[in-house]
Each structure stands twice: as C-alpha cells, then as structure tokens.
C-alpha cells in the first residue's frame, strides 16, 4: 500500500467505517436491538466527522494535483492481460467528490438517527444500510474503474431487500422494478467498460490513466462517440434520466424513510457522478458530440417531473417526481459543458441531496403516525405540528429555489450556464422552476392550513431524534444557501481541469 500523498488513510478509514460496522453487526444477536442502534449511530457519527474532515482538509489549489488524499493498494497486477497497476484500490478525492462525500456523511448520519425507532429486524436493516453506504462512499472515492464499478453495483445490491422487507406501498413491485432497472443500466456500463479497456489496450483499470487516454486520443474519437451513450444511459438510469426515470417514483413510494433519504439524497447522485467520471472525464470527444441530446433529455425530465408532481396526491410520489425534475437540472448543468454549468450541476447534486433527504424525513415522521400519505386526508397541520410544518416548509422552499437556501445557489449557477449555451433550454428550465413553486405551494396550502381534520388532532410533534437529524439537514441547506464559496471553489478547482469544459 502506498500513499501518493498524505492523509490517504483518512479516505481509507472513511470507507472502512461502514464496512466494519456491517461486519460487526453480523455478530450482534438479533434480539439485542439497542446494541445495533448504538453501533449504527456511532458509526454514522464517525462517518459524519470524517466526511467533514475530508471536505475541510481538501486544499483548493494546494497539493500536486486536484486529486488529493490518494492511496494506492495494488490488488491484481501482472496477470493475463493486466499489466502494472492492472487493478489497484486507488482511492482519493477531488473537488467534486469531496463535496459529495460530505453530502453522504450528512445524509447517512441523519439516516441512522432516523432509523432508531425501526423495530422490525433492526440488525438486518443496519447491515444492509451500511452496505449501501459503503457502496456510495466507495464510488465517490474510487479512482480505479474496477473498484468504481464494484462499489457502484454494491450500492444497488441491498436495495431490493431494504425496500422489499421494510418498505410500504406496493413494496414488492417497487423493489423489483427499481432493482431490475438499475442493474439493467449497469449492464450497459459493463459493456462500455469492456469496450473501453479493450480499446485503450493499456492493461490497467486506473481511472486517471484512462482519462489521459481519452484526452490524448488513445481512445479514438469515433470510439468515444460510439460508446459514450453506453455510460451516459447506463449511469443515467440511476440519475433518473428521462425516459428511464420510472423506477424513481415507484421506488421512493415503497422505500422506508431512511432508504428514501439515502436513495434520493445520495444514490441518485451516483448516476450523475458516473456521467462525469466515465462520460465527460474519460470521453471528452464523445461528450462534446452527445451533449445536445443530454440537454434535451435533461430539460424534458425537469419539465416532465414538475408537471407530473403537480398532479400527484401522495406525498412520496410528489417528492419522487420532484426528484426527477431536479435531477433533470443536474443533467442540464452537465450538458452545458461550461465551468459554471457543471459546477452548478454538482452544487445541485449536493443541494438536492440534503433537501430531498429532509423532505423524505418529514414525510416519514408524518406517515409513522398517520399511516396515510394522501394529501386530501390532511389539513390544518400547522395547528398540531408547528415545528414539523416549519421544517417541511424550509425543505419545500429550498426545492422551489428561494434565495438564501441551497436550491437557489445551485439552480442559479445551472441557469446561467444554460443560458450561455442553450437559451431556449434555460427558459424552459425556469418554467419548470415555476411549476415547482406551484406544486409546493399547493401542497402547503392543502396540508398546513385550512380546517383541521379532527382525526389528526392527536398527532404528536416530531421526536427529538427527528428534530436533530432534520436540524442537521436544515443547517446544511442554509449554510450552502448563504455561504457557497467553500463549495464552488472546491468544485470549480476540478471542473476547470476537465478537458472539453470551457470557461
């Protein structure tokens, strides 16, 4: 194992924390639920602290390159077609992944706290939950294509059981649809990987080497144009790329609260992250050629998701479609291929991550008591659950893009980038933002105000843990809305170095 640069061990420790928690949980007796909960919360806190450390320790403009805290552990080399460094556990963070690692730390910690009250097969839940978190961390850290894909798939594996066992509405259908669509997307990535490694002929899965190959033409431009769609569509399924988004509303509707949070909050970002890592960074010529198409699909997703959310009555379906809409913005930001747009896309990944996690947390807090999620059943909740209403309102307004909250920062960057390259798309995106405001305000008016249904008079306010994890997420939303420089400078440090991304 070699550390290319100091502090690689922090990255390794962050990756190993959920993994160790998972293996330790195997040996906790299933009847001892408290032990499992404490262990999970403890691991969540450590991950949270380490993620903050990674984000703050990332030096903008410092270090020898934009990739810092590297670690390389030779895994397989000099065998068959693999040469030196054939497959290595190459970990590290750049500006983009540093931001997303922070996101994962926040959301995963909030997720462990909110799952405290889960009482059915608690231990099994946390084992699978940490498997999911390991997969997400691993994908953000990996600088080796083999391990990147390894962790990417690992994040998908536990979802079937997480949703199938602990889910709610139509859980079997939602779980199966989600798993099959995501793994179907992976199949395309798999084919893309085979073609790329064969075409590069370097005998290595190392991503920085492959990025260099994409830049200097070792990966032929024609080849890039042919295989770029494999990566973008394959990863796009996870990023809810229209028209492959259909798993998202169904999956979110069925999933338990913590899984919805991590899933909408972080996992969907893996898809967009994959488009950056394998698409834009590895195949600049392909990206240049296909970006108009991605822009059209992104805008369609943004408008379609907002329109669909307007017609839904189930809280989770509204948020599911709203996620499709917001991920549409992310794809638009990527498709601009200019610094401000791509930076905005990553900002939006972070912003949407925390605010969607918050939304699902609030929905979960209500559903656990009310056992229904139909808008029409509610009314006047501001009278019985004022704190819940305030929390939800902040989440909703961040979705709408209210200045001072994270949504505004991100969407502003994306819209500026889009207007520079595709003005029409920019106009449509603002239309979608207006639709977002409409469905959010409609929901507020129906649920928060109006006459109180006596059925809900006995609803209790949120528990302490729910307030704590909600508060954590709100703090992130507000922090990014008011002081975004730490985020933008880190992201831009990497984005400006990506070939094909113009000023």
């Amino acid at each position, binding site marked *: 194992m070699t550390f290319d640069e100091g502090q690689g061990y922090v990255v390794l420790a962050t990756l190993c924390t959920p993994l160790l928690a998972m293996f330790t949980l195997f040996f906790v007796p299933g009847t001892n639920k408290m032990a499992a909960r404490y262990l999970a919360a403890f691991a969540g806190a450590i991950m949270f602290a380490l993620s903050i450390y990674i984000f703050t320790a990332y030096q903008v403009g410092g270090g020898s390159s934009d990739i810092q805290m590297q670690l390389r552990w030779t895994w397989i080399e000099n*065998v*068959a077609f693999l040469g030196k460094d054939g497959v290595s556990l190459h970990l590290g963070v750049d500006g983009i992944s540093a931001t997303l690692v922070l996101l994962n730390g926040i959301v995963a910690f909030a997720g462990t706290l909110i799952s405290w009250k889960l009482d059915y097969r608690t231990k099994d839940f946390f084992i699978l939950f940490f498997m999911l978190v390991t997969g997400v961390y691993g994908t953000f850290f990996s600088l080796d294509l083999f391990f990147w894909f390894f962790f990417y798939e690992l994040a998908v594996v536990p979802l079937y059981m997480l949703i199938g066992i602990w889910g709610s509405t139509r859980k079997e259908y939602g779980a199966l649809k989600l798993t099959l669509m995501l793994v179907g997307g992976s199949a395309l990535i798999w084919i893309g990987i085979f073609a790329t490694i064969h075409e590069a002929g370097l005998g290595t899965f190392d991503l920085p080497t492959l990025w260099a190959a994409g830049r200097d033409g070792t990966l032929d431009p024609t080849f890039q144009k042919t295989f770029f769609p494999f990566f973008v569509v394959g990863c796009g399924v996870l990023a809810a790329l229209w028209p492959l988004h259909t798993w998202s509303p169904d999956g979110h509707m069925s999933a338990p609260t913590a899984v919805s949070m991590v899933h909408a909050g972080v996992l969907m970002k893996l898809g967009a992250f994959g488009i950056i890592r394998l698409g834009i960074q590895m195949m600049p010529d392909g990206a240049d050629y296909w970006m108009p198409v991605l822009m059209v699909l992104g805008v369609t997703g943004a408008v379609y998701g907002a329109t669909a959310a307007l017609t839904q009555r189930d809280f989770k379906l509204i948020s599911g479609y709203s996620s499709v809409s917001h991920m549409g913005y992310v794809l638009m930001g990527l498709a601009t291929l200019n610094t401000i747009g791509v930076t905005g896309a990553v900002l939006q990944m972070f912003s949407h991550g925390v605010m969607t996690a918050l939304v699902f947390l609030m929905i979960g807090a209500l559903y656990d008591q009310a056992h229904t999620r139909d808008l029409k059943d509610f009314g006047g909740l501001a009278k019985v659950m004022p704190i819940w209403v305030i929390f939800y309102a902040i989440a909703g307004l961040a979705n709408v893009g209210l200045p001072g909250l994270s949504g505004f920062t991100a969407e502003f960057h994306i819209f500026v980038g889009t207007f520079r390259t595709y003005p029409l798309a920019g106009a449509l995106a603002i239309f979608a933002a207006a639709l977002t405001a409409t469905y959010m305000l409609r929901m507020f008016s129906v649920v928060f105000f109006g006459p109180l249904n006596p059925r809900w008079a006995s609803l209790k306010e949120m528990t302490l843990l729910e307030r704590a994890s909600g508060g954590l997420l709100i703090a992130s939303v507000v922090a990014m809305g008011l002081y975004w420089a730490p985020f933008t400078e880190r992201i831009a440090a990497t984005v400006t170095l990506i070939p094909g991304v113009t000023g």
Partner: protein
Amino acid sequence: MRDYTLFIPEYIAAGSAAGIIAAELFWPNIRKDLLAYLTALAALAWGVASLFYLGDTTGNFQGLIQTDNFTAFFRLMGAGIVVVVALLSAQYLRDRTKVAAEYYGLLLLSGCAMVFMASARELITAYISLELLSFCLYVLVGYLKRDNLSSEASLKYILLGAFASAFFLYGMSLIYGITHSTYYDEIATGLGARGADTNQAVVVGFMLILAGVGFKVSAVPFQWWAPDAYEGAPLPITAFLSTLSKAAGFALILRLFTSAMVVDAVEWRWAVAIIAAVTMTLGNLVAIQQTSLKRLIAYSSIGQVGYMLVVIAAIGWGDAEVGRNASTTLLLHLTGYVVSTLALFAALTAYYNRTGKDTIVGLRGLSETQPFLAVVITASLFSFAGLPFFAGFSTKLFMFQASVNGDLLWLVGLAVLNSFISLYYYLMVMRQMYLYDPEEGLTRFRISPVLWVTSAALMLGVVFIGSYPSPAFHAAERATETLYEQGPPIEARVP
C-alpha cells in the same frame, strides 16, 4: 517414456475407492457417514499428493498424458469437489440407502476421470476418460434406485449420453482420417498441412466433436438431459454434475481446442459463438419459468456454460496471447463458479435434510427460520448473477474482458444482458426467503455442524475470490501457461 510415478495421486484416489468398497463388503454394518468422511479424507490425501506435482511441466506419459500445471489445477479442483460432495452426502445418503460404498467409490473414480480428461493429449485417451466419467455419473444419478425420478433421470442420461459418445467417436475418426493421427500435436500439424478439398470432412468432424463435448457441459442444443438428470439425481450428485462434470468438460475442451483445433479455428469458431449465444439465452429464459429449485439451477448452470463458451469462441478468434489470457480467465471463472455452486448446494442439502423441500416456494421464510442458510444461498445466487463482493462479479468481469475483441463484442454484450436477465429469477428465490414469513408452525431450527462449517467455509471462499481474486488469478495463469507451449508452434492455417 513409461513413467508410472506420474499418477501417484490417482493411485491414492482409485486405491481408496477400492478400499472403501471393500470396507463395506467386509463390514456391512459400518456407519454410512463414516464412509463419507473416509472418502473426504482420501480425496484430501489425493489433493495433498498432487501438490508435489506443482511446477512440473515435463511429466509426460508416452505422449498420451501430460502432467503439467494445468493437470495439477484440475487435480486440486477435483479433489476439492470430491471432499465437499462427500461431506454433503454423509447425512443425505445415510437417511436414504443401505448400501453406500459404491457411491463414494464412484465419486473418487469420477475425480480421476476428470484428471485424465484434463491431461489427455491424445484423442482416444480423452475419449476413454470421458466415458469413465460418464459411466460413473450414470450410476450416481440413478443411485436412489427406489426413487422413480432418479431411475428415470439415469436412463435418460445414459441414452442421450450414448448418442453423444457416438458423435464424439465419429468426429474423432473423421479427424483421424484427415490428419492420420490421434495425438493433439500431430493433429495440429496435419490440419495445418491438409488440402482445401478436405474442408467438408473437417467441418463435420469438428461439429461432431463439439456435439460430444457440448453434451458433457450441457450446451444447447445438447442440454435436454440436464434438467431431468439434475432434478432426479440425489441432491449432492446434482452438485457434482454441475461442478465436476462441467469443469471436466471444459478441461478437455481447453486442452483440445488450444492445441489441436486452434489451427483450423476458422472452421469451428462461428459454431462455438452461435452455441454460446443460444446456450446462455435459452438457459436464462427457460430458468425464469421454473418452480423446482433443482431445475432452476440446471437452467441457470446452462446459462453459465454459455458465458464460458464465449471464451472458447475468443480462443478461436484471437492469437496465442489472447487465447492464453482467455483460458486463464476461464479457469478463474470456473473456480469461482465451482465454489459458488458448492456453497449453494451445501446450504440446500442442509435445508433438504431438515425439511425435505426442494421447490422455490419451499424456501419461504428461510431468513426467519435459518438466517445463516439464507445468507449462504444469497451469496451464491448473487455470485451467479455477478454482483460485487461475490466471486461472480470479478471472475465474470475479467473473463468477458479477456474475450472482448472486435468480432466478439456482440457476444460479450449478449452475455452481459443475459446475466442481467438471470438476476430476475435469482431475485424470485430471494423474495421467498426474505420477503415472506415462514409457513405456520415453522420455527427456527439448527443444522448439522458439518454442513454448517462446510457452507460457511465455501461462502468465505465466494467472498474471498470476489473481493480479492489475485491468488486465484495467478494460479489460473500458472495453470494455462503450458497450454500453448506444447507441440509444434501453432500458426493459423490460411484457407
């Protein structure tokens, strides 16, 4: 040169087989599970003895049999499979038969047959070892003679197997007619020097040989016996069929196709590619509709064979380097596949011994009644589907990567799509285990310690190969490095 010391490991195995049969003859009341443990010990001794032959590349018996690392690899794999299958059989067979010694003797003999299939460098030797394996398996499949399904399976297997042998023999004679030799390296020379007017005979010969070995590994369209034989056979023998028999088939194919037939690859590679495509697609599509777990595994293993045949097609399309890399990854994948399959059957046998159920629905609520078995079954099924942490992910990834070339990307793409389809029916099994509550009255139960340890060890193996494949990968490379170096230098024939 007649060097009889080359076969000491097989003397041990075959001698123990005779000894075990004799033991029951003299002490008819001997505990039947004791016989199983003796067999496992004998196989262990056989494996240890074969360790002494590692690295020896010159061992050659009259040009008929080559004991190089490739042989050693299959010796170890065969010994390992026999150990596990013997352990699986201990309780299963004790509960069902009064006479068990022949069963265990035949397990060891099948192992020897596999070694000779892997080491043969001459067609008649290869054929005889193939027959030896087949005859052992015919008996083993029908071993529960009071069980109608078992007898039917055996009969079907014998009838179709006889046809396949005849095909193989016919193909051999055609190739012999053209090349005037049955030795692999002389066949290579003969095929390189043959005139263009022999094309038809050569193609027919190749196709017949392909049919013979295709039957052994149950490739479509020679797969008809497999589901019935898998379903009827005693459960440990189903494991034996889907591991040892397939591994032996691929050992023979690799040795034969990389040395003798690669010269005329143009004449057969298209057929292998088509067979691979049809095998994986049919296997996976039909598996979706199965309700019996054994039949599901039968079809899923047919799908797996399709993936492995991609490598054989790649050998036909590539040069020696591609061929060597592809063979290496095939051995890697075979190792992962064998370990995963054995883990799956260890868990299923433990479950069957306890409940007597072997349908998919029968696994209902397993995660409540026996969570450990549910985890083992999950690990092996996810390994088949190629999900990370488990063997199948890494081995399949490297196998397909080594097989990719300009002409075969479509086949690799199809293989990836197929492994995506396969996830669906594996999830259907998972659904029964995890999403449903057990039937009324079923409570948590314990399984026998032997099977617990066996399945735990195998599951660790699945995870180990999946997350750190380097040792297995290097072993596989050592095993294949002699494949292309025997005999005259091979140059592709220009048609």
